[in-house]
C-alpha cells in the first residue's frame, strides 16, 4: 500500500508544515516573534504583531540629505529591500516608522522618505509613524506638510499653510495645471506678480513626464514628489521620482551597458546624456530630449544651483562636477533654486 509518509513529496511536506505553523499563529497571542528572514535585516529588533502585521523600522538620528546623504539613501534602500524580501511571505503589512530618535532632518530627505512611502502605498503597503522628540526636527516635518499628506492619503493639499511645503505627490499621470500653478506662485513670490515662467514649467513637466514615461515598467513603482520652499530671496524646488534611475533606464541594450561599465564611469555617462551625446551614441531616435533641455535652462541662467542625484551619481550642474555615492538611489532627485535674477534673465532674453 502506498500513502505512507515516505512516499509524500518532501516539497509538499514542507508546504503542509508551513501551513500548519501559520494556522498555529492565528491565536490569542498579540505578539509573534519576527520570522527568521527579518532577523538578518538591519531591523533585527523589530517585532510583528499578529493583529496588525506591521513592520517596524527606525530612521537614523542624522536623517539630513545635506549632511549625511549616505545614511538617508542607505535607510531608503534597506527599507525597500525589507519590503521586497517580505513580499511573498506575508499578506497584510504596514510599515511603522520610528522617527523618535531623529535629530536632524531636511526637506530633501523628507521628500525622499515620502516618495518611499508613496511607493510602498502603491504596492499595497500602509505606513504609520511617530514624530521626533527633537523639536527642530519635529517642526521641520510638520511645516513640510508631510503628516497632512499622509493623513489625506496623498490627496493634494488645497491650502498652503507653511513656506516650506511638499506641493504635489503624483504617480502615473502628470498634473500639468498644478505644476504650472506652482511656477506662477513662485514667480509671484519673487516679483509680486503671478505670471508664467516657461523655462521652469518646461523643467517641471520634463521631470514629471520622464518619471511617468521612463521611471519603471512596473506601474506601481512610478511616483513623483514636488516640493516648493520659499526662502528669503529664492524659491527652492525639489522633484523626486522613484523608479530605476536615469542610468539604469538608459542602459537598455547589453552591449552599451557592457561598454559603459568597462570604459566609462557613471558620471561621464550622465554628463553625456545631459549634453545630448548619448542620443547620437545609441542612435535611439526621438528620445532623451528632456534632460538636455533641463540643462540648457540651467546653463542659460534661468535657474540656479541645480543638482541631480540618480543611481550612484550626484551631479552638480553649477560646477559641472559629479561625485559617486555608495548607496545607490533608484530614481532621480532634482534640486534647484529660482531667484529674481533668474527671472530677470528670462525677461531680458524675451525683450531681445
Amino acid at each position: 500500500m502506498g500513502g505512507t509518509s515516505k512516499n509524500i513529496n518532501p516539497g509538499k511536506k514542507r508546504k503542509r508544515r508551513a501551513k500548519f505553523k501559520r494556522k498555529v499563529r492565528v491565536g490569542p497571542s498579540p505578539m509573534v516573534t519576527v520570522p527568521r528572514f527579518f532577523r538578518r535585516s538591519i531591523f533585527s529588533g523589530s517585532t510583528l504583531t499578529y493583529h496588525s502585521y506591521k513592520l517596524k523600522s527606525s530612521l537614523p538620528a542624522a536623517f539630513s540629505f545635506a549632511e549625511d546623504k549616505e545614511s538617508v539613501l542607505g535607510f531608503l534602500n534597506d527599507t525597500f529591500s525589507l519590503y521586497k524580501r517580505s513580499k511573498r511571505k506575508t499578506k497584510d503589512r504596514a510599515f511603522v516608522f520610528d522617527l523618535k530618535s531623529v535629530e536632524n532632518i531636511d526637506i530633501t530627505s523628507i521628500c525622499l522618505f515620502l516618495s518611499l512611502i508613496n511607493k510602498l502605498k502603491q504596492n499595497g503597503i500602509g505606513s504609520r509613524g511617530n514624530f521626533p522628540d527633537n523639536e527642530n526636527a519635529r517642526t521641520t516635518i510638520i511645516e513640510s506638510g508631510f503628516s497632512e499628506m499622509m493623513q489625506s492619503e496623498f490627496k493634494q493639499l488645497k491650502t498652503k499653510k507653511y513656506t516650506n511645503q511638499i506641493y504635489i505627490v503624483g504617480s502615473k499621470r502628470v498634473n500639468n495645471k498644478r505644476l504650472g500653478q506652482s511656477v506662477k506662485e513662485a514667480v509671484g513670490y519673487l516679483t509680486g506678480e503671478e505670471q508664467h515662467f516657461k523655462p521652469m514649467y518646461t523643467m517641471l513637466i520634463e521631470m514629471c513626464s520622464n518619471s511617468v514615461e521612463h521611471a519603471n515598467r512596473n506601474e506601481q513603482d512610478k511616483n513623483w514628489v514636488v516640493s516648493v520652499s520659499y526662502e528669503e530671496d529664492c524659491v527652492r524646488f525639489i522633484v523626486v521620482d522613484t523608479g530605476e534611475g536615469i542610468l539604469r533606464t538608459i542602459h537598455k541594450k547589453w552591449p552599451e551597458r557592457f561598454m559603459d561599465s568597462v570604459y566609462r564611469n557613471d558620471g561621464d555617462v550622465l554628463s553625456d546624456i545631459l549634453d545630448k551625446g548619448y542620443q547620437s551614441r545609441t542612435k535611439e531616435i526621438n528620445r532623451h530630449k528632456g534632460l538636455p533641455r533641463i540643462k540648457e535652462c540651467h546653463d542659460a541662467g534661468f535657474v540656479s544651483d541645480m543638482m541631480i542625484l540618480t543611481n550612484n551619481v550626484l551631479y552638480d550642474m553649477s560646477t559641472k562636477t559629479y561625485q559617486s555615492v555608495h548607496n545607490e538611489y533608484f530614481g532621480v532627485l532634482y534640486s534647484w533654486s529660482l531667484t529674481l535674477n533668474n527671472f530677470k534673465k528670462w525677461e531680458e532674453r524675451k525683450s531681445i
Partner: protein
Amino acid sequence: MGREKEHLAILDYSEYPGPRYDSQGPDSGEKFYVKLLNPSFLRCFREDKDLIVDLDGTAGYASSFLDEAFGQLTYDFGADRVKDRVSIQSLDEPEWRSMINDETIPQWEKRRNDHQAPKATMEYTVIHLNESGLEETRSGL
C-alpha cells in the same frame, strides 16, 4: 502670390500643455495631434493653404509634447509636405522651432520610412497620406 494662411494657436487647446501620451496626463501631445493638428493640416492640405502653428502664450512645453505632435504629423504626411505647409511661430522660445525642424521632423521621417508606427494610448482615427499620396485612415488602439 503666396497661399492663404490658417492659424492654429496651442493656447486654444491648453494653457498648460502636458506630457507625450494621453495615458500620462491631460492635454497631451498625442491628443493635441489627434484633435487639432491632424484635422487642421488635412484641411490646409485639401484647400491648398499654409498652416501657422503658434506656440506662444502657454505656460511652456515638455519637449515630448511637441515631439509627439509634430512627429506624428510627419509620420502621417511626410517631411516634405509638413515643411512645405507648416510654419511654427515661437517668439518666446525660438529653440522649439529649431528642435522641431532639425530633430523631430527628420527623426520621424525616418520612422515613416521604416514603418515604425506611433505608440497609441487613446482611441482615435486620423487620416494620413500613404506613400502614393492617397488618403487613408490610421487608427490608434
